[in-house]
């Protein structure tokens, strides 16, 4: 064979690729299209309208759940990013020692633990604490979200730190910067893209969470995803599609910013 092997020229390649894309995006496309349906069905098209967006916008429960989601995601993402930054510095700016890779695993373990296990464990723990303290605010959800967001924030920050030249910190120390000054003036500015990437990843992951939230939340603490889950058990109207579409746009927006930041750093 004189020609170079090219996967794109294999028989059936484009067919398989088209089917895959179709299966991935058709449901989402349908969902977005029916958000603009004038009728009450999510399957029968009755003309274009923005009524479901208006309805969702005027639905106090949706507004409450959205605000709560944003509140929890912001708090959890910020706390998780701070902790992840400290963990990343502690695991990259130290001489290698036995047990270091064990620590990596511990930090990243939440990625591997089945979410339902985590949810049940947190439910049991938090219900005890609720009895002892009587506190039943959003704190539990924030703590829970922080916990599973840490590894997502940790990974981009650690990647950034590992690609950073250690000589820069040494140069700062050589030029009379105390460790704190060296961190603030040299390491932190160079670390920013990683931190922002970690923050946004954590934010999206928290915003999107259903299982753990469903288990941990008290009455009246619905986030947008758990509210939608609750609604789907009753009547399904294109209002759900409208909310989902806005949610999708928000996530896409954040991911796009994330993409541009991570591209900028290269």
């Amino acid at each position, binding site marked *: 064979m004189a020609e170079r092997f090219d996967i794109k020229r294999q028989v059936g390649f484009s067919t398989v690729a088209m089917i895959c894309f179709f299966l991935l995006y058709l449901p989402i496309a349908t969902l977005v299209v029916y958000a603009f349906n004038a009728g009450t069905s999510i399957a029968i098209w009755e003309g274009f309208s923005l009524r479901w967006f208006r309805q969702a916008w005027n639905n106090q429960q949706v507004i409450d759940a959205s605000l709560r989601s944003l509140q929890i995601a912001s708090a959890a993402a910020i706390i998780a990013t701070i902790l992840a930054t400290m963990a990343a510095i502690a695991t990259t700016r130290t001489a290698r020692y036995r047990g270091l890779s064990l620590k990596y695993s511990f930090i990243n373990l939440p990625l591997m633990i089945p979410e339902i296990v985590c949810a049940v464990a947190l439910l049991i723990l938090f219900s005890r604490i609720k009895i002892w303290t009587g506190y039943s605010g959003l704190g539990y959800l924030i703590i829970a979200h922080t916990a599973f967001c840490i590894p997502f924030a940790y990974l981009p920050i650690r990647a950034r730190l590992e690609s950073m030249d250690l000589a820069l910190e*040494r140069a700062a*120390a050589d*030029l*009379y910067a*105390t460790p704190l*000054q060296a961190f603030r*003036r040299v390491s932190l500015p160079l670390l920013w893209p990683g931190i922002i990437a970690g923050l946004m990843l954590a934010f999206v992951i928290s915003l999107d969470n259903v299982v753990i939230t469903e288990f941990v939340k008290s009455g009246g603490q619905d986030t947008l995803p758990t509210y939608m889950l609750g609604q789907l058990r009753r009547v399904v109207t294109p209002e759900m599609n409208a909310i989902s579409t806005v949610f999708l746009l928000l996530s896409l927006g954040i991911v796009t910013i994330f993409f541009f930041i991570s591209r900028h750093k290269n």
Partner: protein
Amino acid sequence: MRENKGDILLLENPCRFAIEVRGVSRIYGASSERVTALGGVFVSIRENEFFTLLGPSGCGKTTLLRLIAGFDFPTEGEILLHGQDIAPLPPFKRPVNTVFQNYALFPHMTVAQNIAFGLEMLGKPKDEIRARVDEMLKLVHMEQMRDRYTGQISGGQQQRVALARALAPQPKVLLLDEPLSALDYKLRKEMQIELKRLQSETGITFIFVTHDQEEALTMSDRIAVMSAGRIHQVGTAREIYDRPADRFVADFIGETNFLQATVVGTANDRATVRLASGEILDAGLPERFKPQGEVTVVIRPEHAQLFADDGEESGIKGVLENVVYFGTDTHYHVRLGGGDIFIVRRQNTRTSVDVLEPGVPVGIRLGSDAALVLRD
């Protein structure tokens, strides 16, 4: 941001040595697998001196530099800066600055901000910093580049910025860790001259680390030749080249012929030796060295002359094996009676002709002080 750096070492009684390294060892690893990077090194570096640590990679020269900078701490021994022990101080308390091998410029700062960094950390007033940065930019001819980011300038320019940044806080000693190794040949030559100029203009003691003997010989006031964690010899370029203290130094610096010989007798600082090929030679000796038995005689290729052997003149005899033309000079490879190869170097002129062809019998004429017997 401004912190009082009053605890940076203030030097009350300057002594005539900028740096004194006293019995410094650096041993890495646990007891089972210890690696001695430096083994009890003593060296004194004078004020306003261009001092070079020269040796092959792994000889401990960079370790010694890191100990002086404070990036590492000695296992034992003292490092005195103008008479005061700095070995236990962290790097930010030592009035010593470093030019790093890969420059380590801060990529998120402009050229001017890089140069200002040390001064800002010392808490100098704004107008003083500004004036000093201007002065430094002028010193390294980088006025045009002051607001560029360090990623936007060439390697040679980065080198200049790294120098300016390290010189700006007026350190007592400037450490240079193979700073020219990333530059191409022409630029390296240029920077060698530039470094010498900066050193004499600023009057700061330079400690320069390199594995390049030519760099060391041309730039340094004095050189310390190192290998395997110890210093073999400290001296001027001429001393080290002409009077190497031992076999390692003679081998590392320049080209040298090594000949096996037996000592016949010694008197004062001279020895009479018999070469493996039978010839008797008169050779110089290092101080306090009375060799006996088997020794190595060293002779620089340019301290020997070649002549066609017609049986009339005495000298070391052999057969010419190879003639290698280098442009500036020609190397003649001579196979001696004992089997060793001896290289003779001759400076070329535009009209010099090679009268000797490979295969002819030749003799080697030596000046009276060409041969040295060295410690192994």
